[in-house]
């Protein structure tokens, strides 16, 4: 009578990540550093977002060898990225036993119209969102966890802040609405009516929502927690910094104790140089990863 891949099992796995930091890693050694620093999971990929941005070209699912090495190196959950709409990359990662798949705008989309139908898989998915409509559509397709898109690989927190504030403001608006206003709001957001009813009755999103896309310092991580994120993804911010081990530990501790400002001050002292950031207005509109997906 035991059931695998139910919503409760898939969403529950994300609930266990709450208050934690999920770190991008490109090899087994980085994965071990992340685990020792207290990461709750690692994201295995071939290049971190800032390198993808620099190198250009098509970014695809990582070589399975890298993902496999990371899975062997650590006991914490291992996530991996598939291209938006790439059914076969997702099935490959599921067959390899990856614990969570990120259908990610960091990679070059395989399908510009359709996202994966994620409720067809046993493995759970996390997806990016910029607003409640995107969140609703991804959950409708079966995503079990959300993250803000931010602007990956920039080390600039401004887009992650914008997206988290937007989602949370829209959630608060739905909660405050009377029930007879929900259908119109559903049409305006491109969300299902049933989804908005669920948000209203729960008083929150039905799945965990992490922050991602621009976290570069312990203070950035704490800021996202302050704004209501359930946890934090750090992409390029750790292994593109001067001292990855110290940055990793400091970001984990700042996430746990995000309102303890004296502590965050201590954590942030003499950390060395954070990853070099990019001002968003210097990125051509067509190169903004957040515009991928809908």
């Amino acid at each position, binding site marked *: 009578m035991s059931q695998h891949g*139910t919503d409760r*099992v898939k969403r*529950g796995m994300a609930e*266990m990540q709450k208050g934690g930091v999920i770190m991008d890693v490109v090899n087994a050694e980085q994965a071990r550093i992340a685990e*020792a620093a207290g990461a709750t999971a690692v994201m295995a990929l071939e290049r971190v977002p800032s390198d993808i941005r620099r190198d250009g070209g098509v970014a695809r699912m990582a070589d399975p060898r890298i993902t496999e090495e990371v899975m062997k190196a650590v006991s914490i*959950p291992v996530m991996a990225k598939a291209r938006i709409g790439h059914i076969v990359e997702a099935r490959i990662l599921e067959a390899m036993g990856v614990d969570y798949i990120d259908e990610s705008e960091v990679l070059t989309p395989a399908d510009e119209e359709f996202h994966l139908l994620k409720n067809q898989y046993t493995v759970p998915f996390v997806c990016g969102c910029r607003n409640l409509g995107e969140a609703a559509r991804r959950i409708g397709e079966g995503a079990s966890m959300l993250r803000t898109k931010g602007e990956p690989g920039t080390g600039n927190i401004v887009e992650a802040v914008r997206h988290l504030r937007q989602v949370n403001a829209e959630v608060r608006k739905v909660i405050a609405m009377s029930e007879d206003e929900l259908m119109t709001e559903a049409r305006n957001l491109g969300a299902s009516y049933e989804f908005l009813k669920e948000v209203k009755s729960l008083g929150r999103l039905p799945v965990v929502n992490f922050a991602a896309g621009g976290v570069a310092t312990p203070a950035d991580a704490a800021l996202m927690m302050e704004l209501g994120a359930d946890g934090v993804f750090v992409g390029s911010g750790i292994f593109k910094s001067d001292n990855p081990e110290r940055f990793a*530990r400091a970001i984990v501790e700042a996430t746990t*104790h995000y309102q303890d400002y004296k502590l965050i001050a201590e954590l942030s002292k003499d950390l060395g140089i954070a990853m070099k950031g990019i001002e968003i207005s210097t990125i051509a509109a067509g190169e903004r990863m957040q515009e991928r997906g809908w």
Partner: protein
Amino acid sequence: MKRVGVLALQGAVREHLQSIEACGAEAVSVKWPKDLESLDALILPGGESTAMRRLIDRYGLMEPLRDFAETGKPMFGTCAGLILLAETVVGEDQPHLGVMDVAVARNSFGRQVDSFEVPLEINGIEGAFEAVFIRAPHIVSAGPSTEVLCVHDGKIVMAKNGQFLGCSFHPELTEDHRITAYFLSMIPSKSDLLLPN
């Protein structure tokens, strides 16, 4: 009113706090040693045990948690929390708190794609309980004083050892508060605690 803490470093903290309140007790988040003062019982939630352990060490919580166990007050670990309580963790040289007389193996049902939910019969709980297993550990062996409360697939998944209660699965992921109520019933009533002058 009973005051019950939840170790709030990471993981399914909110769900346990809500379950405690649903059972009519006061729920307290525990991040620092001082938060353990005046608690009647403590829950160690599901999450990632390696991440929690690092934060326990970093913020000087290990001795206060062991001291809390010394007082004899009830402690309940779910999934990662069970791993933190166990006297032995298979494949690791040292336990974490090492206070509950059981040996635990991590990730013993496989990876996330093998995670599952199943209704289980539990000693001391009337009727089936929907148990959610996520990359769950299990109890490999238990000391003679340990009461096995539930076995699934030939593996011990819930046990009680004196003041300690542990389970492999996540009661906090359901709306069913019977296991929390069972744990709260392990708190001695005030009259039991009156000491002779």
